């Protein structure tokens, strides 16, 4: 029999007032690899973990530049992110042409939020299956927003989306004060990479192939670092593999922080049961 009668389309409310199709779209984000965003008062950094389908394949792009002052990182269905980023690019160019003014970050996210929301109340359409971190620098300063296919956007000092992103959020919560007071771009990127590193599964590490970094802010137009250009940032990390796994592999070189990191792992298990182990294969779609 039917497990659920209320999840066939995005216009049907369940008896408890939920939109299951929208909730499934949110699941698609959790299937994608992680992306982390952090903001100081003057800059925003986006870092993301790229995935390849197979050894011989290339790694799917995770960060898209929108304009000189704005860019996004994605987790979920990459084609949906392309649709949304193309729309943002159009809006950014329109703002320049018609008003001779860069598109404000807050306006940009509300524009895509309106677009996503429309898809949650029209029959025949589907919600976007992608989550975005939007980074921008405008006349009111540095901004980091998280966009969800439900049409909700929230501003953050630091956040993460995608698989195992809870671990990164835990890192960000613990280091919020030093992240907010960063006045060097380098320090902010190192914090971003440290957070991203915590989302790695066992036997994985950050490499120049799977890591992508971007920054935007005061006197710095949106810049993406990929491949060889990432090495300079990876060099600044003490280790490129997951700190928790280091501890598992070789207990002896890591002692004082032992208790601390165990706690992190526990908290993470609690917060994200489903994201940790992706569901069985038949219910999976290709996400990045």
């Amino acid at each position, binding site marked *: 029999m039917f497990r659920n009668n209320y999840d066939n389309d995005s216009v049907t409310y369940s008896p408890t007032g939920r939109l299951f199709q929208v909730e499934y779209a949110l699941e698609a984000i959790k299937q994608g690899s992680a992306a982390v965003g952090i903001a100081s008062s003057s800059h925003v950094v986006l870092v993301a973990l790229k995935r390849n389908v197979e050894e011989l394949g290339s790694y799917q792009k995770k960060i898209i530049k929108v304009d000189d002052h704005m860019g996004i990182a994605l987790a979920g269905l990459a084609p949906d992110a392309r649709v949304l980023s193309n729309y943002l690019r159009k809006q950014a160019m329109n703002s320049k*042409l*018609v*008003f*001779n*003014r860069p598109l*404000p970050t*807050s*306006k940009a996210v*509300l*524009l895509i939020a309106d677009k996503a929301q429309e898809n949650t109340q029209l029959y025949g359409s589907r919600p976007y299956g992608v989550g975005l971190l939007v980074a921008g620098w*405008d*006349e*009111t300063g540095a901004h980091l927003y998280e966009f969800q296919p439900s049409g909700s956007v929230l501003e953050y000092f630091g956040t993460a989306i995608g698989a195992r992103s809870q671990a990164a959020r835990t890192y960000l919560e613990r280091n919020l004060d030093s992240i907010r007071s960063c006045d060097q771009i380098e320090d902010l990127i190192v914090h971003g990479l440290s957070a991203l590193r915590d989302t790695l599964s066992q036997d994985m590490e950050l490499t120049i192939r799977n890591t992508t970094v971007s920054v935007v802010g005061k006197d710095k137009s949106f810049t993406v670092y990929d491949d060889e250009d990432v090495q300079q940032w990876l060099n600044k990390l003490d280790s490129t593999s997951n700190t928790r796994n280091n501890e598992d592999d070789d207990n002896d070189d890591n002692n004082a922080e032992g208790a601390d990191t165990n706690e992190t792992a526990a908290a993470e298990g609690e917060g994200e049961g489903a994201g940790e182990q992706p569901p069985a294969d038949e219910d999976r779609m290709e996400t990045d």
Partner: protein
Amino acid sequence: MNHDPFAWGRPRDEVYGAYNHAIASAGVKEASDIPTAHTQQPIITGTSVLGLKFKNGVAIAADNMGSYGSLLRFSNIERLIRVGKETIVGISGDISDLQHIERLLHQLETEEEIYDTDGGHNLRAPHVHEYLTRLLYNRRLKMDPLWNAVIVAGFNDDRTPFMRYVDLLGVAYGALALATGFGSHLAIPLLRKLVPYDLDFEKVTEEEAREAMLNSMRVLYYRDARAGDKFSLVVLTVEDGKVDLKFEKGVKVENQSWKFAEKIIGYGSKQL
């Protein structure tokens, strides 16, 4: 069927013979060589708008007359439109098009407010001017212009005075002193006498600017048959990054000199 764009959809003459327009008294409408033009002519019009930059601000003025040809039909038309906190748009030319622009600008203002949830993103004069330039040029390209000449006054992002012109052709320029219509013939020479060079607008004080504007409005009332003696004057000033906007309505042209008139008699030989 004829696929010539100028005779699209009609039967082909060489196959069916020329169409008989007498059938059912169908009118003859020949295809034109040029695109359909919706150009009209201004009906109710507003005359000159004047603008002048000074040390820490901008002044802009326009009278309240709306003329129907040579008939001074409406004497209470406000032609200075405030957009946002610190931008004034002065419009001359067709009044119905002025009202259309006014509506668009207020719509724009509302939209800005809706999306600017946390405040701080202000729509300033350069943005309004760029918008109007696109609007007017776009309408001109459609051969359906908004029959106006517009002056936008306000401040740049860095709080320096901003003033720029744009008209029904989409032509845009900026200067220390700007005027539309009759004003460009009569007022600009007077305003330019104050300071000849554009970048020297910083040598003009608010009082001098105000004085020059009132003087120019008086000269225009003397010599422009479409001008009214009642006008609005807006003086925008900035101090310590804060903008002050003084919107004076119903200002009258004063200190006119007509005493000499009674001594002028006849057109040449006539005495007494």
